[in-house]
């Protein structure tokens, strides 16, 4: 098996997180700039300062509280009944020891689908969430495979990047929505008055339409390779690749892709929670058959 170099992966994730933060900052700044240039040219400077403060605050919040946002948006509840979930708690604790990371906080999502994800800014501030469907349908070896996969994401700092992407995707979706609406309802009269702003109007509109697509592309470019890597690391932790392979087979048979979670967080799940007709083109997850085939060959 190819040696998985955790250090390279961690460094790359830290680098990409910073890069993405800067990119999104510039994007939002360009948004605000073109919009205020078109609609409120007299207050351009004040608006830009105000917007910069807001964007910095948002970046700070997404870094430090992104995990809370992700957890609550997926309906994850912290595990309180230690007796009822002893099985899950023991599995997570055992594999954390094997991975050499602190024990993450454990959450449960009420859903019949078999799925799981992890989030947080680093291994010391990490959470892992598992659906009730996974607890009911997976046996111990299979659950260990799934948890091992999630703990590998934590150890590799995939969670930091995934969390930032999730929160940013959510924000860009909201902002571009606002712009498109204000364009449709309030834009026409201004457009006639300020003919020379035509170029900027186009840029603003193009940003509003293109940026969600770009962010979506970032989202899917990053998560495919990570899934294979986390599968391999999980097998290294449990020393039993068939456990995860069996779990993926159950997911394939059992799941209907109807978890009703936001598209912004779909990339952090172990298996795509929403199935859509566009999956062949824009799937955030590698084909499950391929993942099973690789695990079986280990």
């Amino acid at each position, binding site marked *: *098996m190819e040696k998985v170099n955790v250090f390279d992966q961690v460094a790359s994730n830290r680098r990409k997180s910073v890069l993405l933060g800067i990119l999104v900052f510039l994007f939002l700044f360009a948004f605000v700039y073109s919009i205020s240039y078109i609609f409120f040219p007299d207050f351009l400077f004040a608006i830009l300062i105000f917007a910069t403060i807001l964007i910095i605050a948002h970046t700070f919040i997404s870094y430090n509280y992104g995990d809370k946002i992700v957890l609550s948006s997926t309906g994850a509840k912290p595990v309180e009944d230690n*007796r009822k979930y*002893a*099985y899950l*708690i*023991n*599995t997570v*604790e*055992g*594999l954390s*020891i*094997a*991975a*050499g990371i602190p024990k993450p906080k454990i959450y449960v999502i009420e859903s019949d689908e078999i799925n799981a994800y992890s989030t947080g800014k680093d291994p010391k501030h990490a959470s892992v969430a598992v659906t009730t469907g996974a607890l009911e349908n997976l046996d111990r070896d299979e659950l260990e495979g799934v948890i091992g996969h999630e703990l590998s994401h934590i150890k590799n700092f995939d969670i930091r990047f995934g969390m930032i992407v999730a929160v940013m995707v959510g924000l860009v979706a909201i902002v571009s929505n606002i712009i498109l609406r204000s364009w449709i309802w309030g834009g026409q009269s201004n457009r006639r008055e300020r003919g020379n702003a035509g170029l900027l109007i186009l840029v603003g509109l193009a940003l509003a339409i293109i940026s969600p697509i770009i962010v979506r592309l970032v989202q899917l470019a990053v998560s495919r390779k990570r899934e294979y890597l986390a599968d391999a690391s999980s*097998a290294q932790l*449990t*020393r*039993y*690749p*068939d456990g995860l392979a069996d779990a993926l087979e159950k997911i394939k048979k059992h799941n209907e892709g109807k978890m009703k979670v936001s598209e912004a967080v779909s990339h952090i799940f172990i298996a795509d929670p929403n199935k859509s007709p566009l999956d062949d083109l824009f799937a955030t997850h590698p084909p499950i058959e391929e993942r099973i085939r690789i695990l079986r060959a*280990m």
Partner: protein
Amino acid sequence: MAISLWILLIPGAIVAAFILVLIYYYNRIRVLSNRIDNAWSQIDVQLKKRADLVPNLVNTVKGYMTHEKNAIKMVTEARERMLGAGNAKDRMKADGQLAKALKTIFALAENYPNLKASENFKLLQEQLEGVENKVAYSRQFYNDSVLEFNNLITTFPGNLFAGGRTTKEYFEATEAERAPVKVEF
């Protein structure tokens, strides 16, 4: 002027680079060595947890398994031997016996439907199975850490910085634990 500056700079840069590499390897070896010590104490923590669960189990089981005094005695004795062990090797050996004795108890429990149905017993069974896994995983982490350390100090250029450190020993499984073998790769 320019040439004499270069003559000074180049050896200076080489020395500086050497010092940086030296610091890197010194720290890396230290970090890995500390991780091994930490992993070793983690094994002990899990063994202690297993020992702590035993009295609970014995109390729960005693009322139901009236004909299995021997098996219960074996568990209690193995636990005492483990807690009283002076060195790590004896402790591991006693723990192997404790694990075996616990397996016997759970096998015998199959004959007592009332016991098996008891919530308390179910939870204890889950906790002991959990500890069993944690013991195995803490050993695995120990061995993984040893592997990384040994690789570093025996391969080039790490071996130049090993400073007389020798490779650490792997943790070998005892007889009782060899039974449920998982796929290794």
